[in-house]
Protein backbone atom coordinates (compact mmCIF):
# COMPACT_ATOMS: atom_id res chain seq x y z
CA UNK A 1 0.00 0.00 0.00
CA UNK A 2 2.77 2.41 1.00
CA UNK A 3 4.81 1.34 -2.02
CA UNK A 4 1.91 2.13 -4.34
CA UNK A 5 1.53 5.53 -2.67
CA UNK A 6 5.21 6.40 -3.12
CA UNK A 7 5.17 5.23 -6.74
CA UNK A 8 2.08 7.34 -7.50
CA UNK A 9 3.60 10.37 -5.80
CA UNK A 10 6.88 9.94 -7.67
CA UNK A 11 5.06 9.49 -10.96
CA UNK A 12 2.98 12.65 -10.77
CA UNK A 13 5.79 14.80 -9.36
CA UNK A 14 8.38 13.53 -11.81
CA UNK A 15 6.07 13.91 -14.79
CA UNK A 16 5.27 17.48 -13.76
CA UNK A 17 8.57 18.72 -12.37
CA UNK A 18 10.90 16.55 -14.42
CA UNK A 19 9.21 16.44 -17.81
CA UNK A 20 6.57 19.14 -18.14
CA UNK A 21 8.44 21.93 -16.37
CA UNK A 22 11.71 22.02 -18.40
CA UNK A 23 9.84 21.30 -21.61
CA UNK A 24 7.43 24.16 -21.00
CA UNK A 25 10.20 26.72 -20.72
CA UNK A 26 11.48 25.43 -24.07
CA UNK A 27 7.99 25.27 -25.61
CA UNK A 28 7.26 28.81 -24.49
CA UNK A 29 10.29 30.10 -26.38
CA UNK A 30 9.81 27.96 -29.45
CA UNK A 31 6.05 28.45 -29.73
CA UNK A 32 6.37 32.21 -29.35
CA UNK A 33 9.14 32.14 -31.96
CA UNK A 34 6.97 30.24 -34.40
CA UNK A 35 4.03 32.55 -33.75
CA UNK A 36 6.22 35.61 -34.32
CA UNK A 37 8.10 34.19 -37.33
CA UNK A 38 11.38 33.87 -35.47
CA UNK A 39 13.71 30.92 -34.93
CA UNK A 40 13.81 31.02 -31.14
CA UNK A 41 16.27 29.59 -28.64
CA UNK A 42 18.90 27.50 -30.43
CA UNK A 43 22.30 28.66 -29.16
CA UNK A 44 22.95 26.52 -26.09
CA UNK A 45 25.12 23.69 -27.31
CA UNK A 46 27.09 20.84 -25.86
CA UNK A 47 30.00 19.95 -28.18
CA UNK A 48 28.09 21.29 -31.14
CA UNK A 49 24.84 19.49 -30.36
CA UNK A 50 21.93 21.90 -29.85
CA UNK A 51 18.91 19.54 -29.99
CA UNK A 52 16.63 22.31 -31.35
CA UNK A 53 17.41 24.41 -28.29
CA UNK A 54 16.37 21.69 -25.85
CA UNK A 55 19.55 22.31 -23.83
CA UNK A 56 18.32 25.78 -22.91
CA UNK A 57 16.33 24.75 -19.80
CA UNK A 58 19.50 23.18 -18.34
CA UNK A 59 21.57 26.20 -19.31
CA UNK A 60 19.00 28.50 -17.68
CA UNK A 61 19.12 26.62 -14.40
CA UNK A 62 22.93 26.56 -14.38
CA UNK A 63 23.01 30.29 -15.02
CA UNK A 64 20.47 31.07 -12.29
CA UNK A 65 22.24 28.87 -9.75
CA UNK A 66 25.60 30.51 -10.39
CA UNK A 67 24.34 34.09 -9.95
CA UNK A 68 24.74 36.08 -6.79
CA UNK A 69 21.77 36.03 -4.45
CA UNK A 70 21.14 39.68 -3.55
CA UNK A 71 18.99 40.92 -0.69
CA UNK A 72 18.44 44.65 -1.19
CA UNK A 73 19.29 47.20 1.50
CA UNK A 74 16.35 47.98 3.75
CA UNK A 75 14.56 44.79 2.81
CA UNK A 76 12.95 42.53 5.37
CA UNK A 77 15.53 39.77 5.08
CA UNK A 78 13.51 36.84 6.44
CA UNK A 79 10.41 37.55 4.39
CA UNK A 80 12.46 38.34 1.32
CA UNK A 81 14.07 34.92 1.51
CA UNK A 82 10.81 33.17 2.38
CA UNK A 83 8.59 34.59 -0.38
CA UNK A 84 9.87 32.51 -3.35
CA UNK A 85 9.33 29.32 -1.36
CA UNK A 86 5.78 30.36 -0.49
CA UNK A 87 5.16 30.95 -4.18
CA UNK A 88 6.40 27.53 -5.23
CA UNK A 89 4.97 25.18 -2.60
CA UNK A 90 1.17 25.45 -3.23
CA UNK A 91 1.37 24.54 -6.92
CA UNK A 92 3.38 21.47 -5.96
CA UNK A 93 0.99 20.45 -3.21
CA UNK A 94 -2.03 20.62 -5.53
CA UNK A 95 -0.58 17.65 -7.44
CA UNK A 96 -1.55 15.42 -4.50
CA UNK A 97 -5.27 15.44 -5.24
CA UNK A 98 -5.18 15.22 -9.06
CA UNK A 99 -6.53 11.87 -10.29
CA UNK A 100 -4.31 10.93 -13.24
CA UNK A 101 -6.09 7.63 -13.75
CA UNK A 102 -9.19 5.78 -12.61
CA UNK A 103 -9.66 2.91 -10.18
CA UNK A 104 -8.38 -0.44 -11.43
CA UNK A 105 -9.14 -3.85 -10.00
CA UNK A 106 -6.13 -6.16 -10.18
CA UNK A 107 -7.39 -9.53 -8.90
CA UNK A 108 -9.18 -7.96 -5.95
CA UNK A 109 -6.54 -5.30 -5.21
CA UNK A 110 -7.86 -1.85 -5.96
CA UNK A 111 -5.41 0.57 -7.49
CA UNK A 112 -6.66 4.15 -7.28
CA UNK A 113 -4.48 6.48 -9.32
CA UNK A 114 -4.58 9.53 -7.07
CA UNK A 115 -2.08 10.29 -4.30
CA UNK A 116 -4.47 11.72 -1.69
CA UNK A 117 -8.00 10.45 -2.19
CA UNK A 118 -9.84 13.10 -0.18
CA UNK A 119 -13.54 13.78 -0.36
CA UNK A 120 -13.12 17.56 -0.55
CA UNK A 121 -10.44 17.55 -3.26
CA UNK A 122 -11.52 20.67 -5.10
CA UNK A 123 -11.74 22.66 -1.84
CA UNK A 124 -8.15 21.62 -1.16
CA UNK A 125 -7.17 22.95 -4.59
CA UNK A 126 -8.89 26.27 -3.90
CA UNK A 127 -7.42 26.56 -0.41
CA UNK A 128 -3.89 26.08 -1.72
CA UNK A 129 -4.59 28.41 -4.60
CA UNK A 130 -5.56 31.13 -2.15
CA UNK A 131 -2.39 30.55 -0.10
CA UNK A 132 -0.33 30.94 -3.30
CA UNK A 133 -1.14 34.67 -3.24
CA UNK A 134 1.23 35.23 -0.31
CA UNK A 135 4.38 34.46 -2.29
CA UNK A 136 3.94 37.40 -4.63
CA UNK A 137 2.37 39.71 -2.02
CA UNK A 138 5.19 39.25 0.49
CA UNK A 139 7.89 39.39 -2.19
CA UNK A 140 7.04 42.90 -3.30
CA UNK A 141 6.55 44.25 0.21
CA UNK A 142 9.72 42.69 1.63
CA UNK A 143 11.88 44.05 -1.22
CA UNK A 144 11.62 47.66 -0.03
CA UNK A 145 10.96 48.81 -3.57
CA UNK A 146 8.06 50.93 -4.76
CA UNK A 147 7.60 49.07 -8.03
CA UNK A 148 7.70 45.83 -6.11
CA UNK A 149 5.07 47.09 -3.67
CA UNK A 150 2.83 48.23 -6.52
CA UNK A 151 3.22 44.80 -8.08
CA UNK A 152 2.27 42.97 -4.91
CA UNK A 153 -0.73 45.21 -4.30
CA UNK A 154 -1.95 44.51 -7.79
CA UNK A 155 -1.29 40.81 -7.24
CA UNK A 156 -3.31 40.71 -4.02
CA UNK A 157 -6.26 42.64 -5.46
CA UNK A 158 -6.31 40.62 -8.66
CA UNK A 159 -6.03 37.25 -6.96
CA UNK A 160 -8.72 38.05 -4.38
CA UNK A 161 -11.09 39.16 -7.13
CA UNK A 162 -10.56 36.14 -9.30
CA UNK A 163 -10.70 33.65 -6.44
CA UNK A 164 -14.27 34.70 -5.71
CA UNK A 165 -15.35 34.32 -9.31
CA UNK A 166 -13.35 31.13 -9.79
CA UNK A 167 -15.25 29.45 -6.99
CA UNK A 168 -18.60 30.65 -8.29
CA UNK A 169 -17.87 29.67 -11.88
CA UNK A 170 -17.77 25.97 -11.06
CA UNK A 171 -20.70 25.83 -8.65
CA UNK A 172 -22.75 24.75 -11.67
CA UNK A 173 -20.33 21.86 -12.18
CA UNK A 174 -20.77 20.76 -8.55
CA UNK A 175 -24.52 20.74 -9.05
CA UNK A 176 -24.27 18.68 -12.23
CA UNK A 177 -21.95 16.04 -10.75
CA UNK A 178 -23.16 16.32 -7.16
CA UNK A 179 -19.70 15.91 -5.64
CA UNK A 180 -16.48 17.73 -4.77
CA UNK A 181 -14.47 14.51 -4.93
CA UNK A 182 -12.11 14.78 -7.91
CA UNK A 183 -11.74 11.03 -8.68
CA UNK A 184 -15.52 10.67 -8.59
CA UNK A 185 -15.92 13.68 -10.90
CA UNK A 186 -13.51 12.13 -13.39
CA UNK A 187 -15.34 8.81 -13.12
CA UNK A 188 -18.69 10.47 -13.85
CA UNK A 189 -17.21 11.92 -17.02
CA UNK A 190 -16.36 8.45 -18.30
CA UNK A 191 -19.87 8.16 -19.74
CA UNK A 192 -21.79 9.59 -22.64
CA UNK A 193 -25.10 11.38 -22.98
CA UNK A 194 -27.53 11.64 -25.88
CA UNK A 195 -27.01 15.00 -27.53
CA UNK A 196 -30.66 15.28 -28.59
CA UNK A 197 -32.15 13.76 -25.44
CA UNK A 198 -33.58 17.16 -24.52
CA UNK A 199 -36.07 16.88 -27.42
CA UNK A 200 -37.76 14.01 -25.59
CA UNK A 201 -37.59 15.82 -22.25
CA UNK A 202 -39.24 18.95 -23.63
CA UNK A 203 -41.91 16.84 -25.33
CA UNK A 204 -40.91 17.77 -28.89
CA UNK A 205 -40.52 14.09 -29.76
CA UNK A 206 -41.90 10.99 -28.07
CA UNK A 207 -38.84 8.92 -28.80
CA UNK A 208 -35.65 9.67 -30.64
CA UNK A 209 -35.17 8.11 -34.08
CA UNK A 210 -32.40 5.54 -34.02
CA UNK A 211 -29.80 7.68 -35.81
CA UNK A 212 -30.32 10.61 -33.43
CA UNK A 213 -30.14 8.26 -30.47
CA UNK A 214 -26.62 7.32 -31.59
CA UNK A 215 -25.39 10.93 -31.54
CA UNK A 216 -23.72 10.95 -28.17
CA UNK A 217 -21.25 13.26 -26.50
CA UNK A 218 -18.99 12.33 -23.60
CA UNK A 219 -20.47 13.72 -20.36
CA UNK A 220 -17.53 16.07 -19.88
CA UNK A 221 -17.77 19.30 -17.99
CA UNK A 222 -17.01 21.31 -21.11
CA UNK A 223 -20.17 19.94 -22.79
CA UNK A 224 -22.41 20.11 -19.71
CA UNK A 225 -21.12 23.50 -18.50
CA UNK A 226 -19.66 25.30 -21.54
CA UNK A 227 -20.03 28.76 -19.99
CA UNK A 228 -18.58 27.47 -16.72
CA UNK A 229 -15.55 26.19 -18.64
CA UNK A 230 -14.85 29.56 -20.26
CA UNK A 231 -15.30 31.46 -16.99
CA UNK A 232 -13.20 29.02 -14.98
CA UNK A 233 -10.40 29.00 -17.55
CA UNK A 234 -10.29 32.80 -17.57
CA UNK A 235 -10.24 32.98 -13.77
CA UNK A 236 -7.59 30.34 -13.26
CA UNK A 237 -5.39 31.95 -15.91
CA UNK A 238 -5.79 35.29 -14.15
CA UNK A 239 -4.75 33.57 -10.90
CA UNK A 240 -1.53 32.43 -12.55
CA UNK A 241 -0.61 36.06 -13.37
CA UNK A 242 0.72 35.20 -16.81
CA UNK A 243 -0.11 37.43 -19.79
CA UNK A 244 -2.68 38.68 -20.67
CA UNK A 245 -3.27 38.95 -16.89
CA UNK A 246 0.29 39.82 -15.86
CA UNK A 247 -0.49 43.24 -14.38
CA UNK A 248 1.41 42.44 -11.11
CA UNK A 249 4.65 42.18 -13.06
CA UNK A 250 3.78 44.34 -16.08
CA UNK A 251 7.25 44.93 -17.51
CA UNK A 252 6.39 48.13 -19.34
CA UNK A 253 4.86 49.77 -16.24
CA UNK A 254 6.43 48.20 -13.14
CA UNK A 255 9.83 47.04 -14.49
CA UNK A 256 9.30 43.50 -13.17
CA UNK A 257 6.69 44.04 -10.48
CA UNK A 258 6.79 42.03 -7.30
CA UNK A 259 9.92 40.01 -8.13
CA UNK A 260 12.09 42.84 -9.46
CA UNK A 261 14.50 42.75 -6.49
CA UNK A 262 15.18 39.05 -6.83
CA UNK A 263 18.23 37.59 -8.48
CA UNK A 264 19.69 34.18 -9.15
CA UNK A 265 17.76 31.09 -8.19
CA UNK A 266 15.34 33.03 -5.95
CA UNK A 267 14.09 34.72 -9.07
CA UNK A 268 14.27 31.27 -10.62
CA UNK A 269 11.83 29.98 -8.01
CA UNK A 270 9.23 32.60 -8.99
CA UNK A 271 9.85 31.71 -12.60
CA UNK A 272 9.47 28.02 -11.76
CA UNK A 273 6.29 28.62 -9.78
CA UNK A 274 4.70 30.47 -12.67
CA UNK A 275 5.68 27.79 -15.17
CA UNK A 276 4.74 24.98 -12.81
CA UNK A 277 1.25 26.42 -12.53
CA UNK A 278 0.75 25.98 -16.27
CA UNK A 279 0.64 22.15 -16.19
CA UNK A 280 -1.10 22.21 -12.78
CA UNK A 281 -3.82 24.42 -14.25
CA UNK A 282 -3.94 22.06 -17.20
CA UNK A 283 -4.47 19.13 -14.81
CA UNK A 284 -7.19 20.85 -12.78
CA UNK A 285 -9.08 21.98 -15.89
CA UNK A 286 -8.67 18.53 -17.46
CA UNK A 287 -10.04 16.84 -14.37
CA UNK A 288 -12.99 19.20 -14.02
CA UNK A 289 -13.97 19.86 -17.62
CA UNK A 290 -12.15 17.57 -20.07
CA UNK A 291 -13.08 14.23 -18.59
CA UNK A 292 -9.88 13.67 -16.61
CA UNK A 293 -8.40 10.34 -17.71
CA UNK A 294 -11.55 9.30 -19.63
CA UNK A 295 -11.30 8.35 -23.30
CA UNK A 296 -14.29 9.74 -25.22
CA UNK A 297 -16.87 7.19 -26.38
CA UNK A 298 -14.86 4.32 -24.86
CA UNK A 299 -15.68 3.80 -21.20
CA UNK A 300 -13.41 1.80 -18.93
CA UNK A 301 -15.75 -1.19 -19.06
CA UNK A 302 -15.84 -1.15 -22.87
CA UNK A 303 -12.05 -1.05 -23.18
CA UNK A 304 -11.41 -3.84 -20.67
CA UNK A 305 -14.20 -5.93 -22.19
CA UNK A 306 -12.73 -5.51 -25.67
CA UNK A 307 -9.16 -6.46 -24.75
CA UNK A 308 -9.90 -9.23 -22.26
CA UNK A 309 -10.49 -12.01 -24.89
CA UNK A 310 -7.01 -11.38 -26.34
CA UNK A 311 -4.82 -10.96 -23.27
CA UNK A 312 -6.88 -11.89 -20.21
CA UNK A 313 -8.34 -9.65 -17.54
CA UNK A 314 -5.13 -8.66 -15.74
CA UNK A 315 -3.27 -7.46 -18.84
CA UNK A 316 -6.42 -5.81 -20.18
CA UNK A 317 -6.82 -3.81 -16.98
CA UNK A 318 -3.15 -2.83 -17.09
CA UNK A 319 -3.42 -1.74 -20.72
CA UNK A 320 -6.56 0.23 -19.93
CA UNK A 321 -4.70 1.96 -17.09
CA UNK A 322 -1.83 2.92 -19.42
CA UNK A 323 -4.30 4.19 -22.02
CA UNK A 324 -6.09 6.29 -19.40
CA UNK A 325 -2.90 7.85 -18.04
CA UNK A 326 -1.80 8.59 -21.60
CA UNK A 327 -5.18 10.15 -22.36
CA UNK A 328 -4.90 12.32 -19.23
CA UNK A 329 -1.40 13.49 -20.12
CA UNK A 330 -2.38 14.23 -23.73
CA UNK A 331 -5.25 16.42 -22.52
CA UNK A 332 -2.86 18.22 -20.16
CA UNK A 333 -0.49 18.80 -23.08
CA UNK A 334 -3.39 20.24 -25.06
CA UNK A 335 -4.27 22.59 -22.17
CA UNK A 336 -0.62 23.69 -21.95
CA UNK A 337 -0.62 24.41 -25.69
CA UNK A 338 -3.86 26.38 -25.32
CA UNK A 339 -2.46 28.50 -22.46
CA UNK A 340 0.72 29.19 -24.43
CA UNK A 341 -1.22 30.14 -27.52
CA UNK A 342 -3.42 32.53 -25.50
CA UNK A 343 -0.40 34.00 -23.77
CA UNK A 344 1.27 34.85 -27.07
CA UNK A 345 -1.90 35.98 -28.85
CA UNK A 346 -3.44 38.47 -26.43
CA UNK A 347 -1.76 41.69 -25.31
CA UNK A 348 -1.75 42.58 -21.60
CA UNK A 349 -4.98 44.00 -20.22
CA UNK A 350 -4.81 47.26 -18.35
CA UNK A 351 -5.18 46.85 -14.59
CA UNK A 352 -8.66 48.42 -14.52
CA UNK A 353 -9.71 46.21 -17.43
CA UNK A 354 -8.66 43.13 -15.47
CA UNK A 355 -10.74 44.29 -12.50
CA UNK A 356 -13.73 45.18 -14.69
CA UNK A 357 -13.59 41.81 -16.41
CA UNK A 358 -13.56 40.02 -13.08
CA UNK A 359 -16.25 41.92 -11.21
CA UNK A 360 -18.52 43.20 -13.97
CA UNK A 361 -18.43 40.38 -16.50
CA UNK A 362 -17.36 37.09 -14.96
CA UNK A 363 -19.05 37.46 -11.57
CA UNK A 364 -22.57 38.20 -12.96
CA UNK A 365 -22.17 35.53 -15.64
CA UNK A 366 -21.10 32.97 -13.00
CA UNK A 367 -24.12 33.83 -10.87
CA UNK A 368 -26.40 33.54 -13.90
CA UNK A 369 -24.79 30.19 -14.71
CA UNK A 370 -25.55 28.95 -11.19
CA UNK A 371 -29.21 29.94 -11.41
CA UNK A 372 -29.76 28.61 -14.94
CA UNK A 373 -28.07 25.33 -14.06
CA UNK A 374 -30.16 25.00 -10.90
CA UNK A 375 -33.33 25.70 -12.92
CA UNK A 376 -32.49 23.11 -15.56
CA UNK A 377 -31.61 20.46 -12.96
CA UNK A 378 -34.84 21.16 -11.08
CA UNK A 379 -36.83 20.89 -14.31
CA UNK A 380 -35.17 17.61 -15.32
CA UNK A 381 -35.81 16.11 -11.89
CA UNK A 382 -39.47 17.14 -11.88
CA UNK A 383 -40.28 15.92 -15.40
Amino acid at each position, binding site marked *: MTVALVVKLLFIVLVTMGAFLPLITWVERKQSAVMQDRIGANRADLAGITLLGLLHPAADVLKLLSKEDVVPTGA*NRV*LHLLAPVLALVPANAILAVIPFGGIYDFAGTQLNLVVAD*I*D*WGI*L*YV*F*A*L*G*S*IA*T*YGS*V*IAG*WASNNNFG*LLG*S*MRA*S*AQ*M*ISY*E*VTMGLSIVGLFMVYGT*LHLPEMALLQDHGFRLFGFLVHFGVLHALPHWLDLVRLPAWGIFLQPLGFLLFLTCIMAENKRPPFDTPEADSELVAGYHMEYSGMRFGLFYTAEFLEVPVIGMVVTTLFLGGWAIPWLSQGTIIHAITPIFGVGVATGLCMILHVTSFLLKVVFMIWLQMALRWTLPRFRYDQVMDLGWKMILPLSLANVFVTAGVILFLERS
Partner: protein
Amino acid sequence: MSASVPVVMFYALGLLAVLGSLGVVFNVRNTVAGALSLVGAMVSLAGIYVLLDAFFIGAVQVLVYAGAIMVLFLFVVMLLNLRGGNFGPPRRRAGGVFALLVGLAALWWGLDLLPGAFFGTGAVLPADFGGYRQVGALLFTDYVLAFEVASLLLLAAMVGAVILAKRDIGDAE
Protein backbone atom coordinates in the same frame (compact mmCIF):
# COMPACT_ATOMS: atom_id res chain seq x y z
CA MET B 1 -2.26 8.64 25.60
CA SER B 2 0.57 7.44 23.40
CA ALA B 3 2.61 9.82 21.29
CA SER B 4 0.89 8.94 18.04
CA VAL B 5 1.22 11.08 14.91
CA PRO B 6 -2.04 13.04 15.44
CA VAL B 7 -1.04 13.90 19.02
CA VAL B 8 2.38 15.14 17.96
CA MET B 9 0.78 17.12 15.16
CA PHE B 10 -1.77 18.58 17.55
CA TYR B 11 0.93 19.90 19.88
CA ALA B 12 2.99 21.22 16.97
CA LEU B 13 0.02 22.99 15.43
CA GLY B 14 -1.13 24.25 18.82
CA LEU B 15 2.32 25.69 19.48
CA LEU B 16 2.32 27.37 16.08
CA ALA B 17 -1.15 28.81 16.68
CA VAL B 18 -0.10 30.23 20.05
CA LEU B 19 3.15 31.62 18.65
CA GLY B 20 1.27 33.16 15.73
CA SER B 21 -1.25 34.78 18.05
CA LEU B 22 1.54 36.17 20.24
CA GLY B 23 3.18 37.46 17.09
CA VAL B 24 0.04 39.47 16.31
CA VAL B 25 0.03 41.02 19.77
CA PHE B 26 3.72 41.88 19.94
CA ASN B 27 4.32 43.01 16.35
CA VAL B 28 2.99 46.51 16.97
CA ARG B 29 5.75 48.22 15.01
CA ASN B 30 5.69 45.97 12.00
CA THR B 31 2.04 45.59 11.03
CA VAL B 32 2.77 43.37 8.02
CA ALA B 33 4.66 40.91 10.20
CA GLY B 34 1.70 41.00 12.61
CA ALA B 35 -0.73 40.20 9.81
CA LEU B 36 1.49 37.37 8.61
CA SER B 37 1.60 35.95 12.15
CA LEU B 38 -2.19 35.95 12.09
CA VAL B 39 -2.06 34.00 8.82
CA GLY B 40 0.21 31.47 10.50
CA ALA B 41 -2.17 31.16 13.46
CA MET B 42 -5.14 30.65 11.15
CA VAL B 43 -3.43 28.00 9.04
CA SER B 44 -2.45 26.17 12.25
CA LEU B 45 -6.07 26.32 13.42
CA ALA B 46 -7.12 24.85 10.09
CA GLY B 47 -4.71 21.99 10.72
CA ILE B 48 -6.27 21.43 14.15
CA TYR B 49 -9.76 21.37 12.59
CA VAL B 50 -8.59 18.71 10.14
CA LEU B 51 -7.15 16.68 13.05
CA LEU B 52 -10.61 16.90 14.64
CA ASP B 53 -12.12 15.38 11.46
CA ALA B 54 -13.80 18.69 10.58
CA PHE B 55 -12.42 18.62 7.04
CA PHE B 56 -14.84 21.10 5.53
CA ILE B 57 -14.27 23.69 8.24
CA GLY B 58 -10.52 23.19 7.93
CA ALA B 59 -10.57 23.78 4.18
CA VAL B 60 -12.87 26.78 4.48
CA GLN B 61 -10.72 28.21 7.27
CA VAL B 62 -7.73 28.28 4.91
CA LEU B 63 -9.77 29.36 1.91
CA VAL B 64 -11.68 32.21 3.55
CA TYR B 65 -9.66 33.40 6.52
CA ALA B 66 -6.06 32.66 5.60
CA GLY B 67 -6.49 33.01 1.85
CA ALA B 68 -8.99 35.80 1.35
CA ILE B 69 -9.57 37.92 4.45
CA MET B 70 -5.93 38.07 5.46
CA VAL B 71 -4.87 38.98 1.91
CA LEU B 72 -7.32 41.88 2.14
CA PHE B 73 -5.82 42.84 5.53
CA LEU B 74 -2.37 42.83 3.99
CA PHE B 75 -3.62 44.80 1.01
CA VAL B 76 -5.02 47.53 3.26
CA VAL B 77 -1.93 47.59 5.47
CA MET B 78 0.30 47.94 2.42
CA LEU B 79 -1.97 50.46 0.73
CA LEU B 80 -2.01 52.77 3.75
CA ASN B 81 1.60 51.89 4.60
CA LEU B 82 0.66 51.63 8.27
CA ARG B 83 3.48 51.60 10.76
CA GLY B 84 3.36 51.44 14.53
CA GLY B 85 3.45 55.21 15.03
CA ASN B 86 0.40 55.89 12.88
CA PHE B 87 -2.20 54.66 15.29
CA GLY B 88 -2.08 57.35 17.93
CA PRO B 89 -2.22 56.55 21.65
CA PRO B 90 -3.98 53.26 22.35
CA ARG B 91 -7.42 53.56 23.96
CA ARG B 92 -6.59 51.42 26.93
CA ARG B 93 -9.60 51.56 29.21
CA ALA B 94 -12.50 50.41 27.03
CA GLY B 95 -10.45 47.89 25.14
CA GLY B 96 -8.85 46.56 28.30
CA VAL B 97 -12.18 46.01 30.07
CA PHE B 98 -13.58 44.24 27.03
CA ALA B 99 -10.48 42.08 26.65
CA LEU B 100 -10.67 41.17 30.34
CA LEU B 101 -14.33 40.14 30.01
CA VAL B 102 -13.65 38.04 26.91
CA GLY B 103 -10.64 36.46 28.59
CA LEU B 104 -12.65 35.60 31.73
CA ALA B 105 -15.45 34.11 29.64
CA ALA B 106 -12.97 31.98 27.68
CA LEU B 107 -11.31 30.90 30.94
CA TRP B 108 -14.67 29.97 32.50
CA TRP B 109 -15.60 27.90 29.48
CA GLY B 110 -12.15 26.35 29.26
CA LEU B 111 -12.20 25.35 32.95
CA ASP B 112 -15.57 23.76 32.38
CA LEU B 113 -14.11 21.61 29.57
CA LEU B 114 -10.81 20.86 31.27
CA PRO B 115 -11.77 17.74 33.28
CA GLY B 116 -13.14 16.12 30.14
CA ALA B 117 -9.88 16.74 28.31
CA PHE B 118 -7.92 14.84 30.94
CA PHE B 119 -10.27 12.15 32.18
CA GLY B 120 -13.04 11.84 29.61
CA THR B 121 -13.08 9.60 26.59
CA GLY B 122 -13.37 11.15 23.17
CA ALA B 123 -16.84 11.50 21.71
CA VAL B 124 -17.77 8.90 19.12
CA LEU B 125 -18.14 10.63 15.78
CA PRO B 126 -20.97 9.70 13.46
CA ALA B 127 -19.88 8.37 10.09
CA ASP B 128 -19.11 11.06 7.50
CA PHE B 129 -18.71 13.65 10.28
CA GLY B 130 -17.44 17.01 9.10
CA GLY B 131 -17.91 16.46 5.36
CA TYR B 132 -19.31 19.18 3.14
CA ARG B 133 -22.55 17.23 2.69
CA GLN B 134 -23.27 17.08 6.43
CA VAL B 135 -22.33 20.70 7.05
CA GLY B 136 -24.37 21.82 4.04
CA ALA B 137 -27.41 19.81 5.10
CA LEU B 138 -27.28 21.25 8.62
CA LEU B 139 -26.77 24.75 7.26
CA PHE B 140 -29.89 24.56 5.13
CA THR B 141 -32.14 22.78 7.67
CA ASP B 142 -31.45 23.27 11.39
CA TYR B 143 -29.44 26.47 11.09
CA VAL B 144 -31.08 28.07 8.09
CA LEU B 145 -32.31 31.07 10.12
CA ALA B 146 -28.86 31.89 11.48
CA PHE B 147 -27.44 31.36 7.99
CA GLU B 148 -29.87 33.76 6.38
CA VAL B 149 -29.50 36.35 9.15
CA ALA B 150 -25.72 36.22 8.74
CA SER B 151 -26.06 36.75 5.00
CA LEU B 152 -28.35 39.76 5.61
CA LEU B 153 -25.79 41.16 8.04
CA LEU B 154 -23.05 40.80 5.46
CA LEU B 155 -25.24 42.42 2.80
CA ALA B 156 -25.90 45.36 5.12
CA ALA B 157 -22.17 45.67 5.81
CA MET B 158 -21.45 45.62 2.09
CA VAL B 159 -24.06 48.27 1.30
CA GLY B 160 -22.74 50.36 4.19
CA ALA B 161 -19.17 50.13 2.90
CA VAL B 162 -20.27 51.18 -0.59
CA ILE B 163 -22.21 54.16 0.77
CA LEU B 164 -19.31 55.28 2.96
CA ALA B 165 -16.90 55.05 0.05
CA LYS B 166 -19.27 56.96 -2.23
CA ARG B 167 -19.79 59.82 0.23
CA ASP B 168 -16.05 60.38 0.48
CA ILE B 169 -15.80 60.99 -3.25
CA GLY B 170 -18.81 63.33 -3.16
CA ASP B 171 -17.18 65.40 -0.40
CA ALA B 172 -13.98 65.72 -2.38
CA GLU B 173 -15.88 67.23 -5.28
